[in-house]
């Protein structure tokens, strides 16, 4: 839920993505991988929504569905009012100018045979933003400088760059078409700590300068907290909690969020551990548990949890959680991260 009065740029409602499982000599659909079960959220202009969760929770699929890099199975995606899922491929191309993505792996997401000039410049030419060849080169040089690369690197190939530099190229490519919205899919996860800080700062500066909105998908909660205005937590294809960043850290309401926050390794040695141990692994999205998907690992689960999937209910301004035992959340210890966050916000 975006702030009252803010204009929603992206509105996602009941998004679903199933992958059919086919088996047999004459393939028949025998089941579905429910990558995204039922996800709704909005991103306002110039806002960053963090989307967190563990591997297989569907966060990357959500990011790709929003841009229609993957066709969703159901639901609706509206960008600035336009129904993204109803667009023809030509219309979609026009919209892609306004929505971009930065990928996790700076090694596999750049074409090794293309120079920086081609990688960054092609989209500009394609969208007719800059017409002449000279103007394209000029604009690419400017962009390189803006993302912190030497403008003389324009004719180099990806292998000549380090991981952090490649990620800067990926950012320059996304910015080339002057978008309003960027999906950052684990954009700093593959980078070393010192380089990660450089890229996070760059993303924040660019957001202010170019009035960008981000959907920031990541598994590292300290990184997500640093950059996001609001955070949505996913578990096995569903959003289980959504809140303003400070709110989510200071008073996590869903048992999964609490367990997730308590598992963050925090660089404070010899502290008292307040771990909420989760038993076992995330269940398979082929055969998710009935009712609440988290119940098989939840320390608060009761028989009732198996009956129906709990809806996201509002528990405070802009704070929603999907659990029928919200009143019992304080049976679980408050994560250390939360006590730090509370101190910090004082």
């Amino acid at each position, binding site marked *: 839920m975006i702030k009252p009065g803010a204009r929603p740029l992206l509105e996602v409602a009941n998004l679903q993505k199933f992958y059919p499982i086919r088996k047999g000599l004459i393939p028949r659909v025998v089941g579905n991988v429910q990558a995204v079960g039922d996800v709704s959220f909005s991103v306002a202009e110039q806002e960053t929504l963090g989307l967190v969760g563990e*591997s297989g929770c569907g966060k990357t699929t959500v990011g790709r569905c929003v841009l229609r890099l993957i066709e969703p199975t159901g639901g609706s995606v509206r960008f600035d009012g336009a129904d993204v899922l109803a667009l023809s491929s030509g219309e979609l191309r026009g919209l892609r100018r306004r929505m971009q993505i930065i990928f996790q792996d700076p090694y596999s997401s750049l074409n090794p045979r293309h120079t920086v000039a081609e990688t960054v410049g092609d989209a500009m030419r394609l969208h007719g933003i800059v017409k002449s060849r000279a103007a394209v080169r000029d604009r690419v040089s400017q962009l390189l400088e803006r993302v912190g690369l030497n403008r003389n690197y324009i004719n180099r190939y990806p292998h000549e760059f380090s991981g952090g530099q490649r990620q800067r190229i990926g950012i320059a490519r996304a910015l080339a078409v002057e978008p309003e919205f960027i999906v950052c899919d684990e954009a700093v996860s593959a980078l*070393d700590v*010192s*380089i990660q800080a450089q890229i996070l700062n760059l993303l924040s500066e660019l957001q202010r300068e170019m009035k960008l909105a981000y959907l920031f998908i990541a598994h590292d909660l300290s990184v997500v907290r*640093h950059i996001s205005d609001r955070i949505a937590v996913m578990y096995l294809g569903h959003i289980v909690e959504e809140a303003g960043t400070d709110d989510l850290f200071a008073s996590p309401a869903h048992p999964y969020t609490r367990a997730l926050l*308590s598992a963050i*390794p925090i660089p404070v*040695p010899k502290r008292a551990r307040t771990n909420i141990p989760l038993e076992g692994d995330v269940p398979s999205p082929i055969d998710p548990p009935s009712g609440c998907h988290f119940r098989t690992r939840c320390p608060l689960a009761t028989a009732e949890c198996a009956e129906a999937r709990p809806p996201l209910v509002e528990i405070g301004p802009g704070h929603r959680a999907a659990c029928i035992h919200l009143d019992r959340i304080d049976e679980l210890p408050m994560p250390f991260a939360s006590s730090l*966050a509370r101190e910090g916000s004082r």
Partner: protein
Amino acid sequence: MSAEAAAGRPLLSIRDLRTYFHTSDGIARSVDGVSFDIFPGETLAVVGESGCGKSVTAFTIMGLVPVPPGRVEGGEILLGDRDLLKLPESAMRDVRGNDISMVFQEPMTSLNPILTIGRQISEAILRHKDVTKVEARRLSIEMLSRVGIPSPERRADEYPHQLSGGMKQRAMIAMALVCRPRLLIADEPTTALDVTIQSQILDLLNDLREEFEMSVLLITHDLGVVAEVADRVIVMYAGKVVESAGVVDLFERPGHPYTRALFRSLPSLEHRGEALQVIPGNVPNPLDFPSGCRFRTRCPIARPECATTDPQLIEAAPRHLVACPFSSDGGDAQ
């Protein structure tokens, strides 16, 4: 065990270790004069960014550096009275698994995909112990159960692809510890795992360390993980140890300008939204390290003399070594 209590005889001593890689582009001095001790019962963390030489150090201890292009150019690795670098390969095979074991970052690539989990663990036992196959299988199942794998009899007959990432890492740990080594080297053991699974594995390693009275050499880039489990910490940069201290000491009073900069570049939970302080530039290329202090090109307090003198580790405080003669001169504007 605390660093104080462990001040006795080290289990493993590394002295002036140098491991170079001879490539067509030149010599990469990946580990260049590294010395440290591991004491019985302690967890020693080695932290640093990619290319700092932390994994190469671990592989050198295990005798697993590929030759060529790698070559151990000098130094000693003393396990008791034996220098592991002087042992023939046959003797090293007895050391591996028996005295020193290793778990790797990618459990998916370090298990044999065509052998069952039980068979792989049994092989480790049969290699080092004089037991029957039946007994080896019984020990394997017992160990699988000890590392928290449910229904271990059934799991022992499964193949690696049938296990989740966290379960594979548990199976790797079972295999590494089944012969009760005195030292476990864990190279980024939780980096590929989700955060809730990571905390399960870190807890498990800690419990097993106490139960088996072993030492753990933990290689990681994650300062959060270091704070959770380490007793002492070695910080590496560009093939050298730049700082070494007890974990509380290091986090509360980091001495080396690199360590301080590393802490400041972490997104903190207390201060959100502020620009992160960054270390300018990139990690230097191992083929072409700067002269003198290798951090000087990115260091906020570098002076001209840093280019000409190789800084030595000096005792900045009791049991706190820092390889920077100017570390007390500020550069720590927190």
